[in-house]
């Protein structure tokens, strides 16, 4: 089902956590709410799920505004950041919990729970308590529990943040598989741009309670709307020119002879070898560094290019970019 947010606002006293956001998530889409901590993405998710009362605005799920309806009446299910499995129930009873609350008979709910556990490949560990399961296994159980009532919209609050990097990538694939298989709308909160890029059909970049940009991942990366988006998703240099701000992808920077006639002289301040590529940090007169970065510009060179013309910190090199690669920013 499609989800629509209309002027959705959350105020805590005088502080505004979510500031009148509008968003349309089409049915069956994988949507990632992306942003730094404190940007209001989790609050937004909790308002969609009915765990937080909206101060103003509406959440529309499918054909109707859900208002203050209880979570179970919205057709949504939530997967919590810490999984929130009931520690006194084994995996099967955890999954069957919501069926039990609905008064469904023992045999039927057990059969349904087992089918769900099989879907997430946890059938063989159905009798284990959460404490006897690894983080990844607990997460699969939590996913099964969220899916067992047949929700139309699944809400995921930083589902992968507690996993180690290897498992994170595997679970990412798994989430996408299940989303495609069941054709559900997923709304997934994350602070990792890599995760958002890999999973979503729709990336919603949030900052300070507002939506900076909502688009498909390619658009967000190719044409970031604001300096914040360009910096947050990474891989971009945000450059202030006399007539406004532009973003240039770090891999489209030109160094040395290719830099063109308008090249700036730049000092190399850092060289990071990354395997397939080398990241070169550069400082130039007239360009300020972003608040938390170690260089004003970053150029990403392929390892072969770098090997042909190596640079060391302290070297001076002309730097420029293709006019076509420069993307003008709104703010």
């Amino acid at each position, binding site marked *: 089902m499609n989800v629509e947010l209309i002027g959705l606002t959350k105020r805590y006293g005088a502080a505004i956590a979510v500031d009148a956001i509008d968003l349309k998530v089409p049915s069956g889409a994988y949507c990632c709410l992306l942003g730094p901590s404190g940007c209001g993405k989790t609050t937004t998710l909790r308002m969609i799920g009915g*765990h937080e009362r909206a101060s103003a605005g509406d959440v529309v799920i499918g054909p109707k505004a859900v208002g203050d309806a*209880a979570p179970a009446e919205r057709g949504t299910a*939530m997967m919590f950041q810490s999984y929130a499995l009931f520690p006194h129930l084994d995996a099967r009873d955890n999954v069957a919990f919501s069926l039990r*609350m609905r008064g469904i008979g023992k045999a039927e709910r057990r059969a349904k729970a087992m089918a769900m556990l099989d879907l997430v490949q946890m059938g063989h560990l159905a009798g284990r308590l959460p404490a006897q399961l690894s983080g990844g296994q607990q997460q699969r159980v939590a996913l099964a*529990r969220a899916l067992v009532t047949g929700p139309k919209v699944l809400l995921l609050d930083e589902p992968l943040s507690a996993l180690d990097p290897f498992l994170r990538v595997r679970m990412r694939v798994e989430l996408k598989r299940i989303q495609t298989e069941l054709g559900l709308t997923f709304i997934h909160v994350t602070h990792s741009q890599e995760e958002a890029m890999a999973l979503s059909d729709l990336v919603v970049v949030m900052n300070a309670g507002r939506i900076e940009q909502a688009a498909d991942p390619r658009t967000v990366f190719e044409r970031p709307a604001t300096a914040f988006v360009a910096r947050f998703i990474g891989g971009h240099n945000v450059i202030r020119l006399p007539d406004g701000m532009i973003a240039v992808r770090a891999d489209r920077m030109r160094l040395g002879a290719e830099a063109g006639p308008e090249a700036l002289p730049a000092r190399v301040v850092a060289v990071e070898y990354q395997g397939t590529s080398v990241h070169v940090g550069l400082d130039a007169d007239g360009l300020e560094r972003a608040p938390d970065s170690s260089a004003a510009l970053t150029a990403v060179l392929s390892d072969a290019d770098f090997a042909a013309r190596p640079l060391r910190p302290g070297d001076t090199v002309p730097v420029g970019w293709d006019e076509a690669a420069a993307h003008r920013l709104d703010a």
Partner: protein
Amino acid sequence: MNDLALPHTGEAAAAPVAAAPQRRRLSLAYLQAAPLALVFLVFLVVPLLLTGIVSFWEYNEYAITPALTLQNYADVFDGCLSADLCTTIRTYLSTVKFVALTLAITLPLGFAIAYFLAFHIRSDTVRMGLFLLCTIPFWTSNVIRMISWIPLLGRNGLVNDTLRSLGLIKAPIEGLLYSDFAVVLAFVHLDTVFMIVPIFNSLARIDRSLIEAARDCGASGFQTLWNVVLPLAKPGIAIGSIFVVTLVMGDFVTVGVMGGQQIASVGKVIQVQMAYLQFPAAAANAVVLLAAVLLMILGLTRMIDLRREL
């Protein structure tokens, strides 16, 4: 050859070096546990052993002699094999009745208060203040606390006077003081806090997201309480119940004062025998009481695997 041999000797030398600090750590741990172990040994194990030994001694009006007789135990259960209940059984039944009544009241009361403190109070300062409020019964001595009930519950006490002046009753209610009611009231007054603290401790450790998850699964408030909160509060309930059971089973002051010295209790029996210097008889009663209390605690822990839950 040398190259291969060298790391070998290095390893062999390293092993004892690694073992020594571990041994030292272990002995340090024993040292740390020693003071409490010593206190338990001197003030719990030794007196218990002495009580056990004395319970087999002989006594008469003017002397106690070391011996190995089961007469004291026979006296405790004197007449218990006949059809009517013997004194001991009746005393125990009376005491167990108080245990049951006190548990039946302190458990829901303590749970409700602990729930309120854990889930409804947001500020730690307010919570601390309310906890202090719960300890008010302990701010004065036991004797003064007991005596204070008299002007409140007595025939011409505050409660009766108020009810009479309101016209709700004509004659004063007799059973307020020196009755089962008074005894249970005093127990509840004193022991509820022993129920609150462990249950609060269990509830405070419940992850708040579990409550939200239950709501997300469509559980009503009562379903969440029954299916999530209560099972997770079980260790606290068990510990609180153990406190209440042991406190009420061993009591002799409260039952004596609040019951007007008219109600029998196991503790009271032992105290009277001590007063008459019948130490072996008192010791035998104490051993039987200890066994009974241990059985009750065993029953409680059977319901909940405390070691796993802690």
